[in-house]
């Protein structure tokens, strides 16, 4: 066998092995956490669990879901994710449609565009934003978690680029037939952009599910925490001063298997939408990042 073919064979084997190892590194920590969550308390505390549960049991998941703090936060997170996604997407569609017009056809487009893009470049910072939200009396309400991030300029740019690829003739025909811009948008642009809207909705859902900082900043009462914030406080920071929990519940949530179960439930919705996300995001990212 010639030397260079021998070498390229060795390369292929090493390359494949390294790639396989790296991809395992991305999921094994999650598998480990799931294994801990499904194990008995004793082997978990003694650190005997690796990738397969020992003394298999659903107790940790049961304890977690039956915990009032946890189930309340889970509900808040679900509400936030659904309402927040709808609000963001409606605002995004209504903003992207006018901005997708040519500057010649829509006077003022350039001004509006800069008005929004400038917010991507400069911000008042954490403290002034916090004070505005507090002044508006939004603290401890779901709207504090939804409205400040409702205008997602990046999604608007992606969506307006998508709108621009819709043939102009369709729009002209519709306008000449006497439909106004609202009808044209709802009857023509939105139905034709469903793939783009679905993709951006999934990304917005992931954002709302994962977002924890606003939940901590704007809620003085831990009863209003979304799940991500609750997990941040009890599992990551282990800061119980903010929570009104009785000692018995404390026992529950400091247990290693229960902590693992909570982390896993925090990741579960992402794992569920991931297959759908994955189908679309490559296109979306490339559209946003590389332009000729």
């Amino acid at each position, binding site marked *: 066998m010639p030397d260079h073919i021998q070498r*390229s064979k060795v390369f292929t084997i090493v390359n494949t092995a390294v790639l396989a190892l790296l991809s395992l590194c*991305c999921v094994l920590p999650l598998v480990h*956490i799931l294994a801990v969550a499904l194990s008995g308390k004793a082997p978990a505390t003694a650190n005997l669990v690796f990738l397969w549960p020992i003394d298999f049991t659903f107790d940790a998941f049961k304890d977690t879901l039956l915990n009032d703090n946890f189930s309340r936060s889970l509900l808040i997170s679900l509400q936030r994710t659904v309402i927040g996604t709808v609000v963001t997407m409606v605002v995004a569609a209504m903003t992207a449609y006018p901005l997708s017009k040519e500057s010649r056809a829509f006077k003022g487009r350039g001004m509006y565009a800069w008005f929004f893009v400038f*917010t991507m*470049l400069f911000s008042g910072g954490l403290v002034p934003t916090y004070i505005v939200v507090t002044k508006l009396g939004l603290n401890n309400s779901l709207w504090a978690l939804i409205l400040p991030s409702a*205008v997602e300029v990046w999604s608007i740019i992606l969506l307006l680029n998508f709108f621009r690829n819709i043939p102009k003739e369709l729009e002209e025909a519709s306008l000449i037939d006497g439909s106004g*811009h609202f009808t044209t948008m709802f009857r023509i642009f939105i139905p034709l952009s469903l793939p783009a809207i679905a993709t951006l909705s999934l990304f917005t859902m992931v954002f709302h599910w*994962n977002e924890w*900082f606003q939940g901590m*900043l704007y809620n003085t009462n831990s009863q209003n925490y979304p799940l991500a914030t609750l997990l941040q406080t009890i599992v990551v920071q282990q800061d119980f001063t903010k929570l009104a929990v009785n000692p018995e519940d404390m026992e529950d949530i400091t247990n290693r298997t229960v902590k693992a179960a909570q982390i896993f439930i925090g990741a579960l919705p992402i794992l569920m939408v991931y297959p759908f996300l994955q189908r679309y995001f490559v296109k979306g990212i490339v559209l946003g990042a590389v332009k000729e």
Partner: protein
Amino acid sequence: MGKTVTEPKSKWKWRTNWPLHVMLIPAVVLTIIFAYWPMGGAVMAFQDFKPWLGFGGSEWVGWRNFERLFNNSDSLQVIWNTLIIAVLKIVAGLIAPFVFALMLNEVRHMVFKRSVQTLVYLPHFLSWVVLGGILSDILSTEGGLINKIVVALGHEPIFFLGDGDWFRFTVVISHVWKEFGFGTIVFLASIAGINPALYEAALMDGAGRWKQTLHITIPAMMPITIVLATLALGGVLNAGFDQIFNLYNSLVYDKGDIIDTFVYRIAIVSGNMGLGTALGLFKSVVGLVLIVGAYRLAYRYAGYRIF
């Protein structure tokens, strides 16, 4: 003739175009409230701000907040930490996906390639809360998975999240771990855009796989790499609030505290709002200059535009 065409045209435009303005109302109102109003509120960087007195009632102190910040060793250390962590993240965060994309490009087996991609993209979508929970478990000195391996290799257990230098290392590595897969997407796209005729020509000239990579693939990836690197410069004061906040603790404040986490602690936790806003404003202004500069560089050297 010209008159009759131009005059009705502008009227016609307003008659058909007013809905476009109406559609923009929600976004404009929300942006004014949640983005532009806070920008105005940033004047409290120049005040001794007391929430109960408001912007009107608080005392004006000129540049004193900034003087205090830049005469304070803590805040200087925090700015330094931010720069170090951000630069390390940018460098490692570019090299890793670059190399990974090259390796993935050599795989001919499509099923294997797709599976690898599916697995490595995943951590990007998990939040730092979830990953922080997982990391504090597997990095624990009391029998965490990673330290078990470290001990098995004959070392002392490492206090990854409790020792300043190890903390920075952990932050950079875990950032790379979360994002390297996702980062390959743009590189793979740029590889996919290479004209196959170039490889055929190279093969004719007797270039092997390695030579082809060196002389065709890598040069073709350079423009997007330069764009990403310049754009990343714009974010050099963003060392990653979410990640740091979910990993750090009082043991590593000296080496791990960054501007954003520091602002949160001095302003929201300790109530020193004027000082916190001053540092936040400093960050925003420097950030603006860097981002605009970065876009200009990216435009000049690589023809990159956002619109």
